[in-house]
């Protein structure tokens, strides 16, 4: 695009969001989609228009994976490179993509039509390997299907028309129109059950006063579904008590944890329930503004969600004086993320909503005191809001009777990997891992990773453990691996993920994870001895202790967890140094370059010619 037109486009994009620096994320999305990238001069112009420095803009562009500081192709292929995809033939798929497009991952084709990138978790682990092409999801790729897709794209078929098949449920609706499958394998009593009566809970709430709503919420025993398990009622109470003019309700739909995809299914099938939950929360804490923070990978669901919000506005379920309750105003906007795992952490998510880099804040103050725009904010998971709607429909005692003592209700589990029936299982808290594996028809399971990369890796001996906050807490991700899979390869892949996602703010996380991975690879190559395991433990604990935020606290978990549960795997890779010499040191390799430069052999390490002949 020529200079003048480009400047005008950038100006219009900023004006669309009232030149507000708090909407910088949206502005950058607008420009990224329009120009294919955000280059230096554009950053400068945006900075001037909204009143921030160019560096501030550049900080965002380079922080978020979906923004690019160079112009990308018209068609951007983002192939998911999670460990599950790797075990299901990712290498072959990458090869076929590269061959068909003539570019390697990270490159843009010379004609500027295609960009090919690898990306972590796109929330399709149950139908791996999968890719995002622009906004469109292409699940269950095979070398054959990749060839077909690329051929059509090259012929000029629009991306959304390439794959005409539709998934089940609402995936087939005109607004989503995606070939993604829901894969709901087990419906529990709370969320996925058909018995849900819409708006009954909300109506009942509006007849109570907010304090009573919070009390019921606390009595229900509901804990956050995002993984940390903070009691939701308490969070609401704290936000209500904090003095402020305005309060905010944010729905965290940024599930980035490796192997989880429950929010994808909830947003597809239970979005009205979630919005109802948000409305209840808004009434309880006294909020008039809400945000759904939608991860960029799920952008294909945005029209669907916008439509649901619009419909609710039309029927007075959102907007002014909701359901005739005078003085209760509440509306919701959707904030699209831009590809950052750390934005699943609530304070980072709030930063992201404010148009900043998604960096976690120092706590306290907690978001319930000073959150979005410095005002009290509750951030709850999609699943939590769904539960809230159900609690007020059926009553808190109904809810608290499901599950275990300290973990009330059900949990949506995203099962992926080596089992016949990958997909969503809604099970009451307290279900044993072994029972879940049986339901999923997973045979010959050797490793189960519970709670994503930052969760726990357990072996057969622990399969009778229960999924609940008292035992195995989880964000919902359950990755199943059979006995052919390599524990160390899984750990290595998780560490690579954390290295990529580290924001670089603090040294323990930025540098420590790289050292951890180097040492794990040393073990994999059989060059390590027992002292390397001590090093791994020490460094892991150091990273956990000294990192600034949750990412660094979690990143050594795969190492510690696998060391604890799979000591024999590590032991089998160890070799004690022979005669005190380190195995990984190869003198011949170390001398290669020098021999070439000096054009002579080594007097010490090369055999003399007449010795050998």
């Amino acid at each position, binding site marked *: 695009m020529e200079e003048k037109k480009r400047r005008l486009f950038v100006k219009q994009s900023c004006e669309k969001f009232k030149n507000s620096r708090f909407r910088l994320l949206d502005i950058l999305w607008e420009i990224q989609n329009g120009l294919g990238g955000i280059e230096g001069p554009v950053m400068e112009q945006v900075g001037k228009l909204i009143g921030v420095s160019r560096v501030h803009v550049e900080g965002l562009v380079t922080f978020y994976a979906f923004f690019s500081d160079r112009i990308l192709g018209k068609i951007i292929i983002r192939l998911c490179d999670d460990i599950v995809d790797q075990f299901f033939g990712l290498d072959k798929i990458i090869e076929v993509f590269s061959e068909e497009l003539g570019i390697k991952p990270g490159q843009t084709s010379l004609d500027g039509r295609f960009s090919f990138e690898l990306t972590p978790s796109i929330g399709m682990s149950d139908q791996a390997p999968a890719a995002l092409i622009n906004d469109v999801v292409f699940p269950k790729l095979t070398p054959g299907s990749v060839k077909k897709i690329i051929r059509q794209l090259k012929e000029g078929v629009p991306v959304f028309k390439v794959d005409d098949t539709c998934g089940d449920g609402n995936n087939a609706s005109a607004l989503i129109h995606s070939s993604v499958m829901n894969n709901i394998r087990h419906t529990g009593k709370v969320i996925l059950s058909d018995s849900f009566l819409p708006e009954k809970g909300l109506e009942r709430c509006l007849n109570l006063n907010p304090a009573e709503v919070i009390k019921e919420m606390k009595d229900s025993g509901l804990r956050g579904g995002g993984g940390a398990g903070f009691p939701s009622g308490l969070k609401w109470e704290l936000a209500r008590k904090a003095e402020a003019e305005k309060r905010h309700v944010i729905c965290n739909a940024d599930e980035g944890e490796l192997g989880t995809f429950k929010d994808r299914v909830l947003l597809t099938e239970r979005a009205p329930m979630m919005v109802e939950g948000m409305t209840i929360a808004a009434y309880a804490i006294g909020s008039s503004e809400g945000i759904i923070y939608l991860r960029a990978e799920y952008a294909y669901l945005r029209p669907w969600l916008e439509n649901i919000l619009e419909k609710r506005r039309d029927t007075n379920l959102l907007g002014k004086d909701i359901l005739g309750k005078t003085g209760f105003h509440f509306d919701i906007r959707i904030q699209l993320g831009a590809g950052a795992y750390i934005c699943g952490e609530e304070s980072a998510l709030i930063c992201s909503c404010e148009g900043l880099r998604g960096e976690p804040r120092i706590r306290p103050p907690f978001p319930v005191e000073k959150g979005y725009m410095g005002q009290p904010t509750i951030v709850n998971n999609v699943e939590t809001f769904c539960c809230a709607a159900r609690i007020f429909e059926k009553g808190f005692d109904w809810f608290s009777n499901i599950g275990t003592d300290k973990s009330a209700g059900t949990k949506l589990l995203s099962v992926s990997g080596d089992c016949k029936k990958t997909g969503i299982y809604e099970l009451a808290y307290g279900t044993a891992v072994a029972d879940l594996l049986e339901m999923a028809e997973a045979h010959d399971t050797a490793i189960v990773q519970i709670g994503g990369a930052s969760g726990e890796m357990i072996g057969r001996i622990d399969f009778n453990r229960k999924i609940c906050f008292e035992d195995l807490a989880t964000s919902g991700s359950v990755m199943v691996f059979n006995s052919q899979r390599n524990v160390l390869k899984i750990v290595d892949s998780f560490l690579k993920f954390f290295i990529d996602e580290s924001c670089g703010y603090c040294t323990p996380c930025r540098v420590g994870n790289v050292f951890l991975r180097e040492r794990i690879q040393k073990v994999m190559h059989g060059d390590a001895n027992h002292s390397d395991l001590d090093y791994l433990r020490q460094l892991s604990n150091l990273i956990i202790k000294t990192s600034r935020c949750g990412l660094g606290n979690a990143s050594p978990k795969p190492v510690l967890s696998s060391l604890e549960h799979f000591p024999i795997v590590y032991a089998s890779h160890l070799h004690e140094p022979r005669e005190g*010499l380190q195995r*990984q040191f190869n003198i011949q390799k170390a001398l290669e*370059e020098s021999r070439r430069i*000096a054009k002579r052999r080594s*007097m*010490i390490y090369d055999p003399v010619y007449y010795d050998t002949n």
Partner: protein
Amino acid sequence: MKKRLATVSLAGCFGCHMSFLDIDERILDLVQLVEFDKSPFNDFKKFTQHCDIALIEGGCCNEENVRTLQEFRANCDILVAVGQCAIMGGLPVMRNAIMHSNDPLRECLEEAYNDSDYVYNPTNEIPNDPALPLLLDKVYNCTEVVKIDYQIPGCPPSGDTLWYALVALLKGNPYELPSELIKYD
């Protein structure tokens, strides 16, 4: 019986050895405890017999360093890495930073003998006498090449640090140094 002690300086500056001499008159006490074997202190070029303890200064930047270090490993029971170069590579390891080049070693040599503004080298020759040991592709610290039993940090560790550490090792006492001796920031 007296313990046998060997010392060596590999890719180091002899600073740690000089620092060792700062134990001053205590060297008289030391010779009551140890017998020196191969070491620059007595200029023994070869091991006369198997030794108990060796102090290693410096890392490995060429093949001769590697051979010497391996020889020490084979001939001594306990290897003590002394000083920053032996432990982490020290100043020499800075050349490992030329890692994004296709030919890092050549770039290092060119910089040292030709390209630098402060070099006078009209023939543009890079020293390549057959008697010179070949350089390694990068500088390795001692732990990367052989198993190291103990480390004494410092650049150099002070005479006191070395003295207390060595005496503790010789007498089999716990290694407890006051923090002012090993704190460097």
